[in-house]
């Protein structure tokens, strides 16, 4: 059964290539079957392989062929299956299949139906390669592959230049991180002599001591890559803009899978990070600050998808926090639950947008509770899990992270407190969203209801969001991968606070946005309030900053240099020659006597030279 492993990425790849080669000539029905079906097949295969893996319990390593081999540099096209990979694969194929299914209805009216599924299948392929790669170079292939698919899908509606801009921004900003990661790979290969993850970890453990400079450097470079892909500070600015793509794309790529690739990368190379405590701390701090920044930004946004985008950034910040404090399992656990509930939220948001004439502004919605009941319940459950209300999946994972953060010596309580603040903000903005969109006065009538291909994925994701954390099912395969966390439990008070915070947030949101008992208009309209709102609304003005810091200078440089300044050198040589020509042409008088005279002069000089007179 384990031998079936290469089939899992192969199905979507074949489907994608078929769809590309036929360039839209295929009937839509067939496209839908091929597009969603291939991912479904992958999901089933993943299940079979997963069961076989659980039985054997041993990591499975399968080499397809040698990619390239030059001396010691010999990355293979090879897959490595262990608990972590299995968890990721399950999320990708499982959630991926549901989103594909949802898309078959959501994109029905689009002219480029087959192009959409070609890209989406290609994405699933690349993402699977990313998580299944046994070496960092193949991982990098998947890593860039998902980046390209993200680019293509964000710019899917390319007719609008804004979408193209957003797509380009997404690719270029992540490319900055990718380049840092590539440098990390160079460093790792140069120092350790291999890019295969398992031998590399072994080599690192034998060559490096905890706290050496090189592992810190390597880990920081890898963190650069992770930060770019996972939209963490300082490379997070692309994600909110990436919402320009179709909403199921946002659900799949920009919520459930691709953006968590950074988390996966750090978890995958956790043995390196364990050798570099400063890098670990950096991971935790990046995560914490990002989660607070994004949560505060999400509080003031109007666009339903941007709110979700910032909440994604914020939640991935939590995962980074988890990784940074060494709570590997908790981080991946949160990744999984987040994939469930955020995919659910995005799909539900997509359904709302789909049914409301592509309206994005939440303040133009309202009262949809009765109009779109399925969507309402989905959204409510998703928000509850996002806010980590007790007994939802998000609660378990977030709780785990916060408690383990508290355990960390020195910085622990601070990180914990920061995390709690983030949790409070999360609860407030998620229920702000629910209350504003689904309660209150009806402002727009939906013109259609979600069909079965939309409703089924929504309900399935609802179930997963609710009970996904209950049994801690995803945790089982991870036990063999990560070092075991300590059994020590913090006091009940700490746990109690963790539980209470989301409820407080819910209450605040209720009083502000639903009952109106808490009026914050005065606070918001005051001068500092306005400034803060503006600052938060612009995402802490990071876009503005980068525009001034990088984009404009670079474009200006390109504009200044475009005329090829180097040519000035050559043109001046030409000028000198031309001037010489003009000057010398004056000596060509056409007069015989002048020529004779100058010749005589030359003879005299030469003779004088020969005689040694001069």
């Amino acid at each position, binding site marked *: 059964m384990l031998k079936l492993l290469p089939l899992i990425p192969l199905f979507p790849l074949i489907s994608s290539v078929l769809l590309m080669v036929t360039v839209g000539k295929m009937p839509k029905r067939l496209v839908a079957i091929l597009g969603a079906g291939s991912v479904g097949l992958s999901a089933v295969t993943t299940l079979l392989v997963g069961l076989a893996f659980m039985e054997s319990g041993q990591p499975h390593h399968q080499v397809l062929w040698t990619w390239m081999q030059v001396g010691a540099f010999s990355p293979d096209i090879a897959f490595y299956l262990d608990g972590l990979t299995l968890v990721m694969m399950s999320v990708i194929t499982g959630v991926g299949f549901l989103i594909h299914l949802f898309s078959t209805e959501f994109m029905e009216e689009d002219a480029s139906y087959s192009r959409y599924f070609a890209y989406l299948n290609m994405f699933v392929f690349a993402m699977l390669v990313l998580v299944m790669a046994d070496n960092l170079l193949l991982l990098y292939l998947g890593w860039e592959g998902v980046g390209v698919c993200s680019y293509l899908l964000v710019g899917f509606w390319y007719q609008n230049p804004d979408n193209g801009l957003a797509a380009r921004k997404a690719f270029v900003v992540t490319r900055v991180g990718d380049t840092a990661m590539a440098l990390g790979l160079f460093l790792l290969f140069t120092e350790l002599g291999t890019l295969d993850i398992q031998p590399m970890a072994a080599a690192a453990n034998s060559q490096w001591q905890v706290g050496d400079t090189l592992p810190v450097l390597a880990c920081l470079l890898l963190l650069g890559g992770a930060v770019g892909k996972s939209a963490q500070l300082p490379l997070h600015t692309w994600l909110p803009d990436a919402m320009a793509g179709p909403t199921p794309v946002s659900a799949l790529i920009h919520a459930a899978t691709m953006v968590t690739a950074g988390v996966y990368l750090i978890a995958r190379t956790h043995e390196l990070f364990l050798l570099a405590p400063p890098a670990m701390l950096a991971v935790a701090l990046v995560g914490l600050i990002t989660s607070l920044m994004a949560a505060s930004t999400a509080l003031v946004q109007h666009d339903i998808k941007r709110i979700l985008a910032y909440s994604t950034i914020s939640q991935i910040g939590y995962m980074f926090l988890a990784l940074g404090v060494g709570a590997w399992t908790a981080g991946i656990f949160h990744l999984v639950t987040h994939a469930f509930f955020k995919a659910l939220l995005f799909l539900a948001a997509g359904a709302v947008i789909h049914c409301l004439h592509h309206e994005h502004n939440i303040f133009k919605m309202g009262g949809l509770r009765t109009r779109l009941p399925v969507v309402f319940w989905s959204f409510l459950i998703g928000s509850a899990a996002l806010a980590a209300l007790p007994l939802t999946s998000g609660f378990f994972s977030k709780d785990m992270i916060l408690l383990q953060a508290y355990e960390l010596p020195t910085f622990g309580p601070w990180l914990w407190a920061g995390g709690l603040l983030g949790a409070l903000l999360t609860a407030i903005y998620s229920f702000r969203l629910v209350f504003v969109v689904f309660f209150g006065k009806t402002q727009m009538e939906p013109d259609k209801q979600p069909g079965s291909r939309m409703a089924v994925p929504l309900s399935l994701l609802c179930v997963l969001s609710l009970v996904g954390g209950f049994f801690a099912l995803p945790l089982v395969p991870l036990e063999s991968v990560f070092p075991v966390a300590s059994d020590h439990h913090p006091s009940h008070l700490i746990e109690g606070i963790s539980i209470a915070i989301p409820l407080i947030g819910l209450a605040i949101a209720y009083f502000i946005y639903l009952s109106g008992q808490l009026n914050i208009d005065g606070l918001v309209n005051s001068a500092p309030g306005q400034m803060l709102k503006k600052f938060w609304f612009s995402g802490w003005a990071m876009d503005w900053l980068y525009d001034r810091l990088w984009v404009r200078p670079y474009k200006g440089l390109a504009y200044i240099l475009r005329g090829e300044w*180097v040519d000035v050198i050559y043109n001046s040589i030409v000028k000198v020659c031309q001037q010489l020509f003009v000057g010398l042409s004056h000596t060509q008088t056409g007069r015989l006597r002048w020529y004779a005279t100058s010749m005589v002069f030359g003879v005299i000089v030469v003779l004088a030279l020969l005689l040694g007179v001069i």
Partner: protein
Amino acid sequence: MVLVNLILILLVGGVIAWLAERQHPLLPRWIALITILFDLGYFLTYMSDLSWSQIAVVPNPTDAATWLFHYKAEWIPRFGISFELAMDGLSLLMVLLTLVLGAVSVSASWTDIKQRTGFFEANLLWTLAGVLGVFLALDLFLFFLFWEVMLVPMYLMIAIWGHEGRSYASMKFFIFTQVSGLMMLLAILALVMLNHSNTGVYSFSYFDLLYHQVGGDIAFYLMLGFFVAFLVKLPGFPVHTWLPDAHTQAPTAGSVILAGILLKTGAYGLIRFVVPLFPNEALAFSPVAMALGVAGIIYGAVLALGQDDFKRLVAYSSVSHMGFVLLGVFAWNALALQGAVMQMIAHGFSTAALFMIAGSLQERMHTRDMSKMGGLWQNMPRLGAVAMFFALASLGLPGLGNFVAEFMVLVGLFAVAPWVAAAASLGLIVAAIYSLMMMQRAFQGEPDEGRRLPDYGVREMLTMAVMIVGLIWLGLYPQPVLDTAQPVLDSLMQMVDSVTEPTQIAGLMP
């Protein structure tokens, strides 16, 4: 004789194509295509006689008998000039690239050239013959001869069939290459003279001059003579300025040959001649060369972003990409060298394809100005998809040939000069910026509804398919290419290592 015939077939084919124009103006393109394919087939039949074990033999660079093919005939014995051609793994790859891209360029000129088709195809074939000669010649005099032979028809192609600014561009191209060629000629002559004064024998043979230890300042200047000639051809910063003009003004087939093949002669020369002939000097010079490489990568990328002209943009991207070759050669370790060779081939495919796309756009829209394009994907989805593929290849997407090349160059370079590698990595970011900008400006955005443009047909898609398959193959299974070049590069490195102090480049280590 195989090697001689390879060149002769093209030369004769050119003459026939020229004469055939009198019969029918469309005949020459068929003759050109058949000639190249016949040449390719002829070569492949001889290739198939070779086994992998023969290719895998590490050739002794000083002994021609260990090479795959070798041909030598006396030419001007008094000065030690002979007609000496030889092929090892490296030249084999280059010959294959030349012939494949030659066929592609004929396809690119299929409908593009309407006047004096016979003379055009003749020039095309003669250029290819000159390039093959450059890749095969091992007598320095013969090498120089072919070096010039490939220039003149190329000059004519730009000057006669070029676009609006063709006379300026062709003159600039000619002067740049000619001046640098002169420097190389002087260096060759000086090298032969020095060899004569040491050994008393005149010889232009590569094998005789190889181990020649000139030493001292003079060797440095001789190395510089060769280096400048190849740097101009590469083209490296700051002697690249002929390239954007020449590329922009050349007819499509000319751009394909220029970008795909002619630039590679510079890279080939660096690997084959500069370092093996002057190992100590070249390695001492490597910091400067690397700096030029990095400068080229960044400068080319920045300027590519600033262009409105589709072809100019691609031309500057060539400058950027060939910087990696320069880095790879002067990092001088197995990985970086392999990366440089890979880059030569992968860049040949990707850039040739981009120039073909530019040519197709010009043929259809009669402009290269991207500000007048936009939304072309809507009009020509196949062309758009192909362009997207090659734009992604050009920005170094893993899984395609360019990535393998750039990654290997950078990994190899990192071991030698980490900071240089870090600076060169910026090229990965900026490449993404200009490539995607190009896609957006030309193919995305609001389509012009009134525009009716024919999409790619079977001929064009077939041509593109060759290059797409080639790039994917290079990206996912480059091993045959690596294995072919490996023994050659190994032997060159051994030889260079045996005569250089290992501490030469220690100054670059951290």
